[in-house]
């Protein structure tokens, strides 16, 4: 597998580390059901066959966390964005900072 890092270009899989699902975000710790929400966030995962957004870390490169959309059946990658950009957009959508 090869991933196109927005900063470094297309690089081999061995430069990256995988952490997992990018569709879950850290819940509100002050929320009413914080413990249940965090439990889901920490442990519950879907296992889709097909397109999936995942977090990858360019550990042997620029240290950027990336949101990679990958087809889990073929490893075909349809998009790569920096996690920071995705998170900033998410914040704007939530009306946050």
């Amino acid at each position, binding site marked *: *597998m090869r991933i196109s890092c927005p900063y470094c270009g297309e690089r081999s899989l061995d430069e990256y580390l995988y952490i997992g699902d990018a569709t879950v975000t850290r819940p509100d*710790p002050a929320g009413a059901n914080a413990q249940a929400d*965090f439990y889901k*966030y*920490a442990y519950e995962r879907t296992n889709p066959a097909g397109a999936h957004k995942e977090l990858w870390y360019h550990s042997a490169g620029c240290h950027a966390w990336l949101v990679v959309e990958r087809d889990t059946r*073929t490893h075909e990658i349809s998009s790569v964005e920096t996690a*920071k950009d995705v998170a*900033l957009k998410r914040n704007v959508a939530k009306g946050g*900072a």
Partner: protein
Amino acid sequence: MSASQTNRITGKGLIDRRKPLRFTFDGKSYDGFQGDTLASALLANGVVLTGRSFKYHRARGILSAGSEEPNAIVELRAGARREPNTRATMIELFPGLEAHSQNRWPSLKYDVLSINSLLSPVFVAGFYYKTFMWPSAMWEKLYEPMIRRAAGLGRASDEADPDTYDKSNAFCDVLVVGGGAAGLMAALTAGRAGARVIVCDEHFDLGGRLLSETQLVDGKPAHDWVRAAVAELRAMPEVQILTRTSVFGAYDTGTFAAVERVADHLPKPGVHQPRQRLWRIIAKQCVLAAGATERPIVFGNNDLPGVMLASAVRTYINRFGVMPGKTAVIFANNDEAATTARDLATVGVRVAAIVDSRPQPSAAVRDAAKTTGARLVSGVVADAKGRIAVKGARIVPAAGEAFDVSCDLIAVSGGYNPNVQLTTHQNGRPQWNETLAAFLPGSSPKGMTVVGSAKGTFSLPDCLAEGAQAGAAAATAAGFSAHVPQVPKAEAESYGVVPMWRVKEAKHKAFVDFQNDVAASDIDLAEREGYRSVEHVKRYTTLGMATDQGKTANVNGLAILAALTGKSIPETGITSARPPYSPVSIGALAGHHRGKEFKATRLPPSYYWAKEQGAVMVEAGLWMRPQYFPRAGETDWLETVTREVKTTRSAAGICDVSTLGKIEIQGADAGTFLDRVYINMFSTLGVGKARYGMMLREDGIVLDDGTTARFAQDRFFMTTTTVNAVKVMQHLEFCHQWHWPELDVQMASATDQWAQYSVAGPRSRELLAKLVDAPFDISNEGFPYMAVAEITVCNGIRARIYRLSFSGELAYEIGVPARYGDSLIRALMAAGQEFGALCYGTEALGVMRIEKGHVGGPEINGTTTAADLGLGKMASTKKDFIGRVLAGREGLKDPSRPALVGFRPVDRSARLRSGSHLLPKDAGNFASNDQGYLTSVAYSPMNGHWVGLGLLSNAASRMGEIVRAYDPVRNGDTLVEVVSPVFFDPEGERLRV
């Protein structure tokens, strides 16, 4: 020509007759030529028996002339380079080559275990499961050793591999797999367009079948055209030719794996030359021109030496100038019979009969029979005759009585299987083609085009045309302007295959998988016993599971299964081919990553100084750290470590702590950021101060601990444990980039930038006072406990000083730029001489932290919470932090969770062992009584006995209780007392003086 090469044909072949080579097989000396394979040289010398089979020890010879060889498997070379299970057909002859046959005792000709063949009714499919089920003890002691001896797989060398293996990455526009007619045309066309082309071929010369056939290309012998094509390719600067290179895996994103046998054809690799090289090739486009593999036909005794694939017969004649027999019978279901008969007759082999299994032998075959004088039979060869070599064939005509024909060669062709393997490595499914009676590539991976006989195109002019088209298309797709050239002229051949899988008239055992000794009767049995899925039959019979991956066996096997189950071949399906296409040595996969170079080694700044002192080193992650510094007269490590601890606690000790992870954290929101990752507060930390911090994972378990100093309002310096340095850096970047990108904070690892030493002990202040530059005030008032400062030392060297203590003594850590690390340790030791200071290693470091009850790696072990470690009160209730919510789960607050306490042996002379399980005093040693375990133990020089830290259930209420430390692994069973984890200076008075 050597007199011994009785089967060598004068004036024929592409071998170099000016370069004779001597080699040995089973200790006997033979001659061959440069350009021979071991197989061709053995055949030239009349050696047809090359080994015994895996299970039945049946006599086996050379079946093929390529990487599909299932039979002629030999042990190559001797000593440290001895290599089992190499294919004689792929071994290039080199001077002094030494090979041995496998699976025979005492000799190849008189193999005692060939009695297995008589016992063959016992050794049927699934016999391991059926015969050796009970009693289980008999497995280990009797059956398994017996089977291992009987079912030989050659002997690996017991010595370390003396050779090196390389790894290389390559990038290209067009990768051409296979250098036969189609592949060469593709490479020429793409190369002419200027594309970066890599051509790989598993053989030592490009040309493929063109080297083995007598066809003309552009009116010249095919190998002349090959020579010109290769010369043109070599002249192109962007074209790289990799011969002896097998592309064994096709992966996503145009990634291919290949192994180049760089020096396998030499007696030993040259100086600095690798034995093999593993290639990772990244290709924008791939042209797969991997050719096709001829199928045997399943008839009685079809495994006897002297039964050979028809294509291999032609290869041995035309390419190697070797006569594979004197009298031949040809058995085929296609027009390869005609070509083979002509080539045999041309070199003087008598073609006794052509047996054509098709309902009507074709005109081509009738014509060849006429010109060669062969008897043409419409029918089958039912059995080969002979004990250790073919002596004849029993022929059953379609009409009429069976009869025998004397011969020493049976050339067999059951048609061709296109080599589609690389198209299936990413889940591509081959498609059955009824006309060609073969599986053709179904979908192929993105960017891959299949051409030539790999695609089922068996006629030379079509192969050349397809190659040219694919080469042009691939170059165009890669961004070049390419055009399809005029292809050289060649004559079209006929094929006309009509399936013939299994000869039902066979009286003898008929083999499907030669290498794994799977006969047609095994498939019958599997089917009778209910194994009807091709995947089940494969596993039950081991069909196609040998190192040849069933290249000559799989399709025949499933065709036989299809016939038995009354299904069609496409309904029956085919098992998946997975990488590697052909065997790859572990050495090539490991490359340089072996022994000491398995992983990188990091050296702390004081490494060379410590080596000069005779320090004993220990691996800590990637680091090599001094473990202890023995002195003359000391008899064991404990004596040394005890001295190091006592000296440090009474005078001063210096320890290299540069391996701790160090992270610079800066920005206006740095304090806020640290508040969110640590359980305790850091935004309130004063400038010029340090604080111990602990961080959790989101699930509430402790991730790491360390101290973080604040050098300015917006500038922090974090330390982590040595082992978690990388993990913590990754975690912080994750938290910042994914959770809180809005925070103004930047971070960078500075582990390698700072050399850092701990200077501990009551004389440490006096020692450092000699090195720090004025006007820095190192007095207790001027620089109290937990203070930090940026200073200079040794007349102007930039340094950071921290008043931190892991040992429990008055102590400092001092950091200088890493390049001064060696100088600083020498300066510290010189300054410390008058105080009796020494340098201590990781052992003394560990002893002192256990004496002080500080947690380390054995306690922060991925299962413990802050509360488990007695540090729950550190967690701030005024803020959120990573792990806070889930650490509050009921189960993690359960008081029966094992928590940290100290232990000392009731009998003070007893030794404690880490890992000992803690049981109630009078409880039996059952897992159900387990209440925890000892995590860290040490002989405490300050207490004069062993002490331990451990995790114990309901620890808080059990102070003073006596429990059992049970260590069945080392026969330990010691009564220990539950005590405070702090064994020395519980008030912490020493570190504040």
